[in-house]
């Protein structure tokens, strides 16, 4: 992480770094009937180290956009480059590898495995990128220390508070050192105090140089980002 921040510092001084995300004319239509045009003609660029929020009402297409950004779904049309790689031409296998290596997800409902310990949950995100087990555990411990959960490593997720669970999820998203952290309504299931703690973690990550895209319907959450984009009916508005 420190290496990353140095790079970020030095490069901002010279020129804008190459964008992490480059979407041009991206569409996602769900074939009906009736056909739903969830995302239409989206142009979006996210630079390295940027903290972006995408805010919009329910049903505006936020989650669909996040799935496209995270390579969980395929656009109906358009161009999407991630870290300069044209993802449109990739086969599913390659997309899965790219997803595991470059993207970290944080979901509204945490998505932790109840039958695994906190440490195992965090280590899970390195399984599919081929990190050896011993190293996975070591890195998972470091990541949990970073989010202030070193004392909860051997707990079951079910014994944790909502805020703690979301911090576990963040540790899991970070530990594989992704290029882009995607969060879909990360505070949606939390009370305001816990929500605030999560937003503070995001602030810290931003200062350390992480690229973040947070999707929310909450203007307060959105206002914490460096740059806000509004989405209405599948179209971005500035």
């Amino acid at each position, binding site marked *: 992480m420190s290496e990353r921040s140095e790079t970020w510092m030095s490069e901002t001084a010279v020129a804008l770094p190459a964008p992490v995300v480059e979407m041009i004319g991206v569409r996602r239509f769900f074939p009906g009937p009736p056909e739903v045009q969830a995302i239409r003609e989206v142009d979006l660029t996210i630079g390295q180290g940027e903290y972006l929020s995408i805010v919009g009402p329910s049903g505006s297409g936020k989650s669909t956009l996040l799935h496209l950004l995270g390579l969980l779904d395929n656009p109906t049309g358009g161009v999407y480059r991630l870290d300069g790689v044209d993802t449109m031409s990739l086969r599913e296998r390659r997309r899965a590898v790219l997803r595991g290596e470059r993207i970290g997800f944080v979901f509204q409902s945490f*998505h932790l495995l109840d039958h695994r310990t906190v440490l195992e949950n965090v280590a899970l995100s390195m399984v599919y990128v081929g990190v050896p087990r011993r190293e996975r555990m070591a890195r998972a411990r470091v990541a949990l220390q970073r989010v202030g959960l070193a004392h909860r490593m051997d707990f079951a997720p079910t014994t944790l508070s909502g805020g703690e669970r979301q911090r576990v999820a963040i540790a899991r998203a970070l530990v594989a050192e992704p290029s882009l952290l995607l969060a879909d309504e990360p505070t949606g299931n939390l009370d305001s105090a816990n929500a605030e703690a999560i937003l503070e973690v995001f602030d810290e990550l931003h200062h350390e140089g992480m690229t973040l895209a947070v999707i929310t319907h909450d203007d307060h959450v959105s206002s914490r980002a460096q740059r806000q984009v509004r989405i209405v009916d599948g179209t971005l508005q500035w």
Partner: protein
Amino acid sequence: MAARPTRLILTTLGTVLGIAALVATVGLGQTASGQITQRFDLAAATRVVVQPEEKGGQEGEAATQLPWDAPDRIQRLNGVDAAGTVSTLDVGDDLVRSVAALDGQKDGHALKVMAGSAGLFDAVRAVLRTGRFFDAGHDRRADKVVVLGKHAASRLGVNRVDSQPAVFIGDEPYTVIGILDSVSGRAELNDAVIMPNGTAKTAYDLESPDAVEIRTQVGAAQLIAGQAPIAIQPNDPSTLNVDAPPKQGAVRKGVESDLNALFLLLGAVALLVGGLGIANVTLLSVLERISEIGLRRALGAARRHVAIQFLVESVIVGFLGGLLGTAVGVLLTVGVSWVRDWTPILDNRLAFGSPLLGAFIGLVAGTYPAWKASAIQPITALRGT
């Protein structure tokens, strides 16, 4: 899955039952047909008995007399292991007792008294509990010796022969030289006091033997049955009656394979049910864990990773079920064999192969659920959250 022991046990239950049924049915099938074969071969398949035809169907009146040298004539035939005569003596009111009767006191037993040649014991596969059989010398000298059948011995209270105990038939003393433990075929010997032919001729005027007991080599019974009357009575073989085992070979084989086929069919049906059980529970597990599947895909799992995860689980479940089922099946086979006094027979390949069969069933049963799981779209799996 490992974190859900209850589910694991419930899932394996079908396979456990299926494999247990298979192992037990095949095991018991093998054991049972083993018993049939054993009894059949040892006792019946090599036994041939020759006796005179009864005259005009009248009880007790023989059409002809067996010669005393019948065993020697039979012995010359190829395929005969042993032969000996056997006769039941008419002892009138004579009772048998183990000590000299006190004056006027009649506390003897109405035991059967029989006579035989020295070869009889070998012919009926007699086994001694103690002492010895009488031999040709006893026969020739008409020695007053007897061998006791096991039931006769216990009724007379004789269980040792080293002190040369005497039994009395009527008022005549005889020395007990041996006690039988078992015979096969002619069970009446168990209840009898048996003396040499020579002795019986002297004491009871035995004119001719009642029957000749023949023990043949395995597979020779049919042949010997055809040759024996001619060897004994070359002039008039038709006056002799021959008891021989029926030609069983083909029939028995048929019965055995019918039995085994039925048992196997039962096992296969049980396994099918077990396999469907695994498939069903794995499918349920897939549905329950859709969001886990979505998460794993988000963390970089390709479709094949998801498929392999569920396949591995169903194979492990199948293997564990197979292992447990084999243990249960073996226990059942041994238990039933114990209760029925059989020797349990179990093919090693069955014992070692069954857990693998369980794993294979897990593999087959898991294929469809695994494919189903891998086909789930990540966005579908992560939605509704």
